[in-house]
């Protein structure tokens, strides 16, 4: 997911009886479906976990601009160019909303950038894969945004008010993202044989990384259990992955494209598809920084930040000058 394997610092999930009164009152409010707001008391673990999760989510939006941004100048028509630019711009906006949500927890955006640039903070593994053809832009919208929506829709109900509100805004704006991706591929599979081949190639390359977005099975993870108890995670990774596969397979069939998984078949008994296991070694390598584009992606973000320092400083300096000028001259 956009936030993968977020740690909680919890050795295990405490029961209500083990909590001190303050923490117990907090947990009871969460259990009752109430929202937690910025200045209210919260356990340190809750605060830290949220910062990790929201900032990871924000970083993913910002780094996620890059693979798609790679094709803006080469979009095939003026309309496709405008749509793609608007979409990538939305991602910058979503990163901004999320950074702001995290800032309510007492961390600055600059600190979060610093964590991203130093490699301390992670972002979604998916954005370390290259966009090699125009069909990849279709595949990202269809599969990557499709997978993201699976996770983001339930997050609208998460327990932390600012995060929940950011997700509501994001989900509303993102509803066109997946459709535009599917629309690109629909056009391509109805086009020339070369276009159809590009579409199939994109699906071949993006399918497994998309399944990896949900992260490895977390049914036994204490972090996941704690996050669920805090209602900052609503479903298990496997649950969401299953839902994604079940939703996506018929769409691939509609496009006349083949999902690159020999083990994929309908399981009548469970009412869903059986499917193969992603290559988790690859996933951990990508997370560790060894994906095809890790160095470029992080390098591009660092450079944008460093090259822009003089610009940000100049605007601050001007604001200070203007404020000084606006002050009335002191009487003698």
């Amino acid at each position: 997911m956009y936030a993968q394997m977020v740690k909680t610092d919890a050795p295990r999930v405490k029961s209500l009886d083990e909590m001190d009164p303050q923490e117990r009152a907090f947990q009871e409010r969460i259990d009752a479906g109430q929202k937690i707001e910025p200045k209210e008391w919260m356990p340190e673990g809750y605060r830290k976990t949220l910062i990790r999760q929201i900032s990871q989510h924000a970083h993913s939006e910002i780094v996620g601009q890059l693979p798609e941004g790679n094709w803006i100048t080469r979009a095939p028509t003026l309309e496709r160019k405008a749509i793609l630019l608007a979409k990538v711009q939305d991602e910058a906006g979503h990163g901004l909303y999320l950074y702001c949500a995290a800032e309510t927890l007492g961390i600055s955006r600059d600190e979060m950038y610093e964590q991203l640039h130093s490699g301390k903070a992670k972002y979604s593994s998916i954005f370390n894969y290259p966009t090699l053809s125009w069909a990849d832009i279709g595949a990202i919208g269809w599969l990557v945004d499709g997978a993201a929506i699976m996770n983001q829709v339930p997050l609208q109900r998460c327990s932390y008010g600012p995060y929940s509100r950011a997700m509501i805004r994001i989900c509303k704006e993102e509803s066109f993202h997946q459709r535009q991706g599917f629309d690109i591929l629909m056009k391509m599979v109805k086009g020339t044989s070369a276009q159809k081949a590009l579409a199939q190639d994109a699906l071949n390359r993006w399918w497994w990384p998309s399944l990896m977005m949900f992260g490895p099975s977390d049914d036994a993870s204490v972090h996941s259990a704690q996050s669920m108890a805090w209602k900052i995670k609503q479903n298990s990774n496997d649950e969401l992955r299953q839902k994604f596969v079940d939703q996506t397979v018929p769409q691939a069939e509609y496009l006349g494209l083949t999902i690159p998984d020999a083990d994929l078949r309908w399981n009548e008994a469970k009412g869903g598809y059986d499917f193969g296991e992603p290559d988790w070694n690859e996933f951990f390598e990508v997370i560790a920084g060894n994906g095809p584009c890790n160095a470029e992606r992080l390098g591009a973000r660092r450079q944008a930040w460093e090259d822009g320092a003089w610009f940000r400083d100049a605007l601050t300096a001007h604001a200070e000058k203007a404020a000084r000028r606006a002050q009335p001259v002191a009487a003698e």
Partner: protein
Amino acid sequence: MSSEWPLWEVFIRGQHGLNHRHVGSLHAPDAEMAINNARDVYTRRNEGVSIWVVRSSDIVASAPSEKGPLFEPSNSKVYRHPTFFDIPDEVGHM
């Protein structure tokens, strides 16, 4: 490292004449840029006709610990709500 642009809260009045509503926040070096940035960030989908920005540090908020004393007293003033009063059907709409 240089200092960060201050944070601003953004309020937008939509097309339908309702009050300005808090929509989110952003960073900007000064008020004028904050208005411009708010226009670019928060009205991308034709959401607004008027923008207010205010420095986050200038917002004075009620303390969460006073939630009880501040808001619970109004719970008992049920007579402030129109549903408190039973008006017979034959009187018609009121």
